[in-house]
């Protein structure tokens, strides 16, 4: 039976890629330990491969294996969200029941930590001035005028640097198949 992954690969000129077998075993074990209540581990593994393949197609992927695990965690989180939105007969009548919120929160925190780790990579790749401006604005909460004075640059340059930094981070996350979650 063709899986979503095999279909995607067959349609995407990526059929020559070898798929890692052994890491999947570790990935399954990892997901079971991490999300013991998640019912559809196999779907998740497939989904993770699909997303990895998309990320690879979209751009530069350096650590394929690390990314696969990261993506799987995000897929797990998405799965929790889907279950919460479309409760089956096994679910209590209230989709916001404490059980599901607990799971979603646990996955949410994990997802957020992964996102932050990835974001640090994106930030490390920014030009120093651009990162400096983001830190002064986001962490030190200086106004753009104060930042301009401190760095001896024009205010509109500060805004431009903030915009460039944000765009590069968004681009980086998208290429890695990660969607920043709502606050």
């Amino acid at each position, binding site marked *: 039976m063709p899986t979503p992954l095999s279909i995607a690969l067959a349609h995407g000129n990526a059929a020559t890629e070898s798929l890692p077998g052994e890491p999947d075993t570790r990935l399954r074990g990892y997901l079971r330990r991490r999300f013991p209540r998640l019912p559809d581990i196999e779907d998740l593994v497939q989904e993770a491969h699909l997303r990895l393949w998309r990320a690879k197609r979209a751009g530069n992927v350096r650590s394929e294996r690390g990314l696969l695990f990261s993506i799987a965690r995000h897929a797990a989180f998405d799965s929790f969200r889907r279950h919460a939105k479309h409760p089956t007969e096994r679910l209590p009548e209230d989709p916001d029941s404490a059980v599901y919120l607990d799971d979603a929160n646990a996955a949410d*925190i994990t997802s957020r930590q992964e996102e932050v780790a990835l974001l640090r990579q994106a930030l490390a790749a920014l030009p120093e001035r651009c990162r400096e401006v983001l830190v002064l604005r986001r962490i030190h909460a200086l106004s753009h005028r104060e930042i301009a004075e401190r760095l001896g640059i024009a205010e509109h340059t500060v805004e431009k640097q903030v915009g460039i930094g944000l765009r590069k981070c968004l681009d980086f996350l998208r290429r890695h198949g990660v969607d920043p979650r*709502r606050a």
Partner: protein
Amino acid sequence: VSPDAVHTTAAAEAAAARWLARRESGMSESDAAAFTRWLGADPIHAEQWRRAEALWTALGDALADRPVSAPRAESGRLISGRAP
């Protein structure tokens, strides 16, 4: 995903980043009106704006770990060793 779709997404993403930077500068009334028009013009705009705002929140955690400032759980989202 067609090349056009990628282009559209990337363009909306870049616009969302610029709007967020403008918001941080402080928006004039005409800025705010233009922003509202942009936001409603295409669902892709709203989606990319949502990503940009989520990124802004996440940046607090991502940047705070640097030595430039003391680490703090600004958003309160991450588990901390707070006393009960």
